[in-house]
């Protein structure tokens, strides 16, 4: 197995792990803020790692654009990889921007609507 494929596997594996962790947190955490924390943070990191994993092959794979350029094949051979990489980076950018903003908007509207944060099993009475 080539080092490139190992890198892809590691990135996809960790990305999936973060997404699963986020999903478990979304189901198990007690209130809206903690659930948002699990879903928002987990998605941001998980999606980032998965897209980074997908980026590896069009960039550093057998016909990746970095490899093609380094081999001196010019832009003609690299074009397809560059387009794919650009699309993936755009997806990453939009997911990061829109996901975090949606998370912020949800948390803020919960706060403005007067949702009281969870303070522990005993309701925060014991200090």
């Amino acid at each position, binding site marked *: 197995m080539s080092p490139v494929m190992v890198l892809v596997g590691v990135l996809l594996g960790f990305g999936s792990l973060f997404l699963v962790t986020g999903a478990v947190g979304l189901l198990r955490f007690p209130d809206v803020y903690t659930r948002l924390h699990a879903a928002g943070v987990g998605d941001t990191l998980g999606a980032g790692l998965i897209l980074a994993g997908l980026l590896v092959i069009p960039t550093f794979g057998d016909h990746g654009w970095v490899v093609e350029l380094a081999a001196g094949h010019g832009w003609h051979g690299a074009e397809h990889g560059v387009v794919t990489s650009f699309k993936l980076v755009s997806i990453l950018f*939009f997911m990061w*921007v*829109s996901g975090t*903003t949606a998370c*912020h*908007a949800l948390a*803020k509207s919960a706060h*403005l609507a007067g949702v009281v944060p969870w303070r522990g099993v005993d309701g925060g009475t014991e200090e």
Partner: protein
Amino acid sequence: MTRKTIVRVVSKALIPFILLFALYTQFHGDYGPGGGFQAGVILAAGLVVYGLVVGLDALNAVFPPAVREVCAAMGVLIYAGVGFTTMALGGRFLEYGVLTPHHPEHGQHYGILLVELGVGLTVSSVMVILFAAFAARARVAQTEVV
């Protein structure tokens, strides 16, 4: 308005790209995944975000209710119009090849382009109509409470 600065700034930066991506999906439908339905939904999503952030009145100014209704009907008209045009030219309903008898593949290209345009127009208008209907209901409920 200062209470939603982040949402305003981010949506202001993203909405042009959402609308551009809708056009990309619309015209990419000829030779890849995509097409009128998805493009219409993406276009409507951009407009709905605008309506959510800036307000229903601003959305109504950008895409007035009367224009929405005309667009929704116009899309169906384009779709059916292409179908009946091909029938008038001697083909079957939506048999695009008869549009350009000497190059049937060109006719198929134009036909699909037009039909997808109709689908995109109707889908985006109907999505915005649905959103505006629900948003207006919330407004009515609010004024009743006050």
